[in-house]
């Protein structure tokens, strides 16, 4: 084996990543060739030194902070739940929307003509949608609580505010569904997300990131901490 070939393969030799035959012939070459052997020793030292860097343990309290963040994440993303729950959930509201559609059609034509623009309807109809919802509300509220029970226990006020928000959001969903005729599950899902979006954003901003009680870089046995200015 020539010196050039050996140099070329030193990286893989260092990692023991060559076939046995090649490992053996390089080993033999190194025993006989001081120049290649020097190169090999130098590279081994670098590899060994590199192995000692960035060996810091996880910061203290990392798991706790992550746990908090995960719980928060779970709460924020609650509307995007596994399909099984969503299917039942949407079926319920699709049924309500269908009833509403009938109601809407029975609204005097004159009324529709007068306030043809969306804004007008938005002001007038949520109350009606709300009334309609009141029948099915207990049931749906129970389902909602079932979905959130283990996450929201410590925030009763937040929860009730959210319930109100949600009810308003549903009113809008029913409205839009009634107007556009999008009673399919996908359509409802999209509308639901649209209606939900502002609330979600606000909550995210309010709570923000988990307050992280950072430990100052200790520098003890921690090369990354030590070199921090």
């Amino acid at each position: 084996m020539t010196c050039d070939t050996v140099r070329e393969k030193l990286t893989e030799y260092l990692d023991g990543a060559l076939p046995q035959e090649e490992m053996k012939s390089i080993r033999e070459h190194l025993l006989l060739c001081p120049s290649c052997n020097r190169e090999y020793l130098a590279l081994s030292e670098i590899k060994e030194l590199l192995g000692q860097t960035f060996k810091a343990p996880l910061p203290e309290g990392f798991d706790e902070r992550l746990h908090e963040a995960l719980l928060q994440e779970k709460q924020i993303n609650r509307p995007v739940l596994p399909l099984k729950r969503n299917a039942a959930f949407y079926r319920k509201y699709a049924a309500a929307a269908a009833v509403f559609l009938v109601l809407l059609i029975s609204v005097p034509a004159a009324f529709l003509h007068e306030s043809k623009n969306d804004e007008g309807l938005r002001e007038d109809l949520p109350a009606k949608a709300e009334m309609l919802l009141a029948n099915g509300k207990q049931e749906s509220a129970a389902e909602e609580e079932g979905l959130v029970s283990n996450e929201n226990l410590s925030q009763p006020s937040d929860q009730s505010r959210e319930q109100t928000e949600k009810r308003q959001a549903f009113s809008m969903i029913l409205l839009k569904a009634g107007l556009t005729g999008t009673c399919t599950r996908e359509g409802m899902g999209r509308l639901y997300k649209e209606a939900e979006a502002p609330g979600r954003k606000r909550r995210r901003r309010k709570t923000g990131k988990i307050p992280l009680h950072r430990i100052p870089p200790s520098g003890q046995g921690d090369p990354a901490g030590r070199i921090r200015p």
Partner: protein
Amino acid sequence: MGWDEKELLEKAKAGDVESFEILIQAVRQKAYQIALSYLKNQEDAEDALQDSLLKIYRGLSRFQETSRFSTWVYRVVVNTCLDHIKKNKRQKDRILSFSGEDREENPFDAVSMLRDESAEPERHMLQKEKTQIILACLERIAPSLREVVVLRDVQGFSYGEIAQILDISEGTVKSRLSRARQAVKEMFFQIMGEKGEQK
């Protein structure tokens, strides 16, 4: 993927936080060190790791069981760190253009510091110095070479795993690794030589 891991994954996909935490138990330490190697300080590394793990928790349903969970986690961590670096650079650029400074200071440049005399015992100091010189050298090579050599020599990933984490070919891993070690070696011994002459 073992049966237990599969079950945990199913539960985690359904949103179960505890199952998710068990799943990441084995990878979070290494993931943190990877983040540290990109971002250089505890705080940023923890931020990036937390971001990564939240992303993973959110995106679990997209995880295909044909790929290894751990490799996927590390890949997300690498990408998140790169995003953080990009964001920080933009921030820094804004601050620099504001203050009219044009020279970027390298907070990681430990070489100048190392030339100072120290009262610490010789032997211990030498080892510490060497580690810091290595870090400084690492900082001076191209990022694309650095990440490969860190994943291999610091974290001990195989060529195949590195290829998956960085989304490059194994051949590229080998050639970058070789160039990276060579570059670090040359710089390292040059600095050591200069230090020897000073004494």
